[in-house]
């Protein structure tokens, strides 16, 4: 009997504290039914307490959010019309002064505690979740592969060349954004270029675990980086690393619609073994009216059998371009490359508002 005393005492105390917590949860953490009003047109009734982002996702409205609500990517921006309290320290680093006055918030950080009205971009209503099957994996270089997904449900995706989709590993909370490398004219497939990041959770998974025939969910399309079609001005494309993906989509698309626009495309890699899509670009050069592709390597060594351009991509660009006023530029790659290519183009006289870029 002695033996049971501590057990009973402890159980009773735990029960008492448990009841206390349940009561606190009921009276303090229960926000009741709240209305979530989106752009003044859609309305959901939700059980309050979680983030706006989670309710939108649950209701099949997909907002870009690569980090899965940890406030590290800063993508899930939206205007919050109702008063939900001041900007949080977790949101501040992602906001411009204008966004702060416009009451833009990170939707993953703002919780629904009463009726809340928000404003999001109209195109987010078009974003869908696609069930896909991995059809093929093609090695492009020693550390880069092309993944081809066949869309199952819905069977077709409508996107603009240059936009990205988000990739979700089953059971992992986070998502990663990858630009679509295939053309919108093949709406039933999506191709992604993935470069292995040593130690990276996602790329390691994609390189080592993912097999052909696996089912994968993609959401999209997202992004402000896409081909502008309201003009016929010449195009400059600049890419580095896995940034070739959206550029390939843009150029393939232009070829398929038999565009007459003049295109010059630069691709910068470190060594010859970083250069990919060479055959494909050669083929495009042969078949298109005015397309030039210039791959360049920045770290040539004596043993290389490299006959192309050498030097940093900005130096190479300056060799080929003179006055680029009236050109449009699409750049995609590491931030440092974008920064210097941007400065180089500006110096050559391009209109700043016509430089579009996507940093990886």
């Amino acid at each position, binding site marked *: 009997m002695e033996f049971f005393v501590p057990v009973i005492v402890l159980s009773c105390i735990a029960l008492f504290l448990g009841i*206390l917590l349940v009561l606190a949860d009921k009276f303090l953490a229960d926000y009741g039914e709240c209305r979530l009003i989106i752009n003044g047109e859609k309305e959901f009734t939700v059980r309050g307490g979680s983030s706006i982002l989670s309710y939108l996702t649950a209701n099949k409205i997909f907002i870009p959010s690569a980090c899965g609500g940890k406030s590290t990517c800063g993508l899930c921006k939206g205007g919050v019309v109702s008063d939900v309290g001041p900007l949080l320290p977790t949101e501040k680093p992602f906001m411009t002064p204008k966004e702060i006055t416009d009451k833009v918030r990170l939707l993953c950080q703002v919780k629904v505690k009463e009726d809340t009205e928000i404003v999001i971009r109209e195109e987010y209503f078009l974003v869908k979740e696609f069930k896909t099957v991995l059809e093929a994996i093609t090695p492009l270089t020693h550390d880069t592969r092309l993944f081809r997904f066949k869309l199952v449900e819905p069977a077709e995706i409508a996107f603009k060349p240059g936009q990205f989709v988000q990739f979700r590993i089953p059971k992992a909370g986070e998502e990663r954004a990858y630009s679509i490398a295939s053309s919108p004219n093949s709406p039933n497939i999506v191709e992604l270029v993935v470069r292995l990041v040593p130690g990276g959770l996602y790329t390691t998974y994609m390189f080592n675990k993912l097999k052909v025939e696996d089912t994968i969910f993609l959401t999209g399309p997202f992004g402000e980086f896409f081909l502008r079609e309201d003009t016929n001005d010449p195009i400059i494309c600049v890419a580095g690393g896995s940034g070739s993906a959206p550029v390939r989509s843009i150029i393939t698309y232009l070829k398929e619609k038999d565009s007459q626009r003049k295109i010059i495309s630069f691709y910068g890699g470190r060594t010859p073994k970083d250069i990919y899509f060479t055959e494909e670009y050669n083929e495009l050069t042969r078949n298109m009216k005015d397309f030039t592709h210039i791959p360049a390597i920045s770290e040539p060594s004596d043993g290389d059998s490299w006959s192309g351009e050498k030097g940093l991509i900005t130096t190479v660009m300056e060799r080929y371009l003179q006055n680029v006023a009236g050109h449009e530029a699409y750049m995609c790659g590491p931030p440092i490359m974008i920064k210097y290519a941007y400065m180089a183009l500006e110096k050559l006289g391009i209109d700043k508002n016509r430089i579009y870029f996507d940093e990886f």
Partner: protein
Amino acid sequence: MSGQFLDLFIIFFATIFINNIVLTYFLGICPFVAVSREIPTALGMGMAVIFVMFMTMAINWPLNQLVLVPFGVEYLQFLVFIFVIATFVQIVEIFIDRFSPVLYVNLGVFLPLITVNCAILGVSLLFVLREYTYPQSLAFALGSGIGWALAITAMAGIRQKLRFSHVPKGLQGPGITMIIAGIMALAFMGFAGMVNLN
């Protein structure tokens, strides 16, 4: 009656100034250094600690005297006290999340970490050691909480001013904070001898 009241007041006063829990016993030093960058955050943390300390004492004392001691299971003290502390930290967390999201984010991980704040467990263990009565324990807990809040708020005030002074590189952040804590402890020693708690 007035003697008893005086006794409570002495305990209350002494735990705030003379035997300040963080500055003389160095209990609860971790959040004291970590969340003392800004006064509002420090004050919020202080309030949370006052609440948790007082409420856990209000429950721990009767639990100890009416349950643990009569049943002869005093060795469960640690476990039971931590249970109670954890429960109240949860309640505080729900409360702050509801009413001040900014404070909630600012306190971050240190809010749930109040659970393992040694000052709070220390207070619960000291009342057993010192054999305080229920009113004495409550005065002791309230005083300790206020003392801790006072210390961290004062520290935050000093650190806010410090932002504009030239601290040598190697001492920036926690380094200079520890030195300031030492100097504050010295200043609080000036109260020693006014009343004596053992």
